[in-house]
């Protein structure tokens, strides 16, 4: 099996039914997708599969053989944050940070899909499957609204 992860191609040796999450974290040592509930319920393992957000804990690696995967590592660098990352930073949208990879990946896909300013309701719909136990969501929603308007 093969995966292109953040632009780099990898041959995968994990068994076909291995969750994509474990392939990323343990075989490829890409650790931004977090192993949270591992039942699809918390959202922090979310990655982009061919541009669309999916739960890596619910996705058997064989079912995405040949796909292009984007994780948080593929969105920006510490010196050049992506617009969503910069907005999360500016709006204090991360506290412990455990949910942040999934939030940022899903919010990035929302902004790509809409291509312009998004409203609160769009964000609640897009991030409805992502749990944060620290922030109360207010700053996360603020950050995504700001990023969609070109502001950090």
């Amino acid at each position: 099996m093969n995966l292109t992860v953040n632009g780099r191609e990898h041959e995968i040796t994990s068994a076909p039914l291995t969750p994509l999450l474990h392939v990323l974290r343990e075989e490829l040592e890409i650790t931004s997708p977090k192993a949270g509930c591992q039942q699809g319920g918390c959202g922090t393992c979310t990655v982009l599969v061919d541009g669309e957000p999916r739960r890596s804990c619910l996705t058997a690696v064989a079912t995405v053989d040949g796909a292009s995967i984007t994780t948080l590592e593929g969105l920006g660098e510490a010196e050049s944050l992506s617009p969503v990352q910069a907005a999360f930073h500016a709006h204090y949208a991360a506290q412990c940070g455990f949910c942040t990879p999934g939030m940022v990946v899903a919010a990035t896909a929302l902004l790509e899909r809409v291509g312009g300013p998004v409203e609160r309701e769009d964000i609640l719909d897009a991030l409805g499957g992502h749990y944060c136990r620290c922030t109360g969501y207010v700053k996360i929603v603020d950050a995504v609204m700001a990023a969609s308007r070109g502001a950090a």
Partner: protein
Amino acid sequence: MRGAYPSCLTKSTNTRRIGGMAAEALIPTSPEEAASLFGEGENLTVFAGGTILLPEIAAGRLKPTRALMLHRSGLDALDTAGAVIRIGAMVTIASLIDATDDLLTRFAEQVADREVRRNATVGGNLCASPGIGSQRGDLGAPLIALGARVRSTGKGGDRTEPVEDFLTGDRSGRLVLSIEYDRPTGRTASEMMRRRHAHSYAIVNVAACQTNGDLRVGVSGVGPLAVRARSVEQSRNPDDVLSDVDPVSDALASADYRRKMLPLLVRRALDQLGSA
């Protein structure tokens, strides 16, 4: 065996090895090959979207030895253009929502969240084993109300039957190929009760269709399987639904609560149809 990965690819190196992850994977590339590999379904775990099975496998609670993985099987054809809507078993809930706008869509939009709906399939929703903390199979109610038919294969060959008959039959011995229903021409009604929580299954789902005086009512969420409320269809009395369904208690609601809410939701659905 055709479709199976060579053994060199089923060996993991530095990844964790939990029981079933190392199952022999059969990956058919056509519906015919899927049917042939399924055979009579003996000693085989059918893997569709994985939203229910993969957590069980990863946690070591389910240890399949052979997995029939359907993602390349071509069972994902979706035809919504004609008078009969045809939905392949591997159509995801997300693509169903994108392609349809009817009674089924209203319930599909309530399934989990956007990301999970990109994995979850219609066939998997019909074949889900009963849940432990809550009930499953939220699409059962609208499919029953729409008079949907399930085409499946397995022992004795292909079979097409009403969804309510499929649900009460031996599902583990059948491979769902597709689901079809006539485009609704009459009035439809939906009533849902659920927690405000993206991943909550329904507490009570009621769907109803009325076509030329013919009423069909489906109920899901109240017990392990969706049920056709035949008593209500005949009497039009919402309270009769409790002779069709025996609500259960789970983590979401008590049986007592469901017994009180179910007739209320049936009444509202019938009111929507103007036939109460």
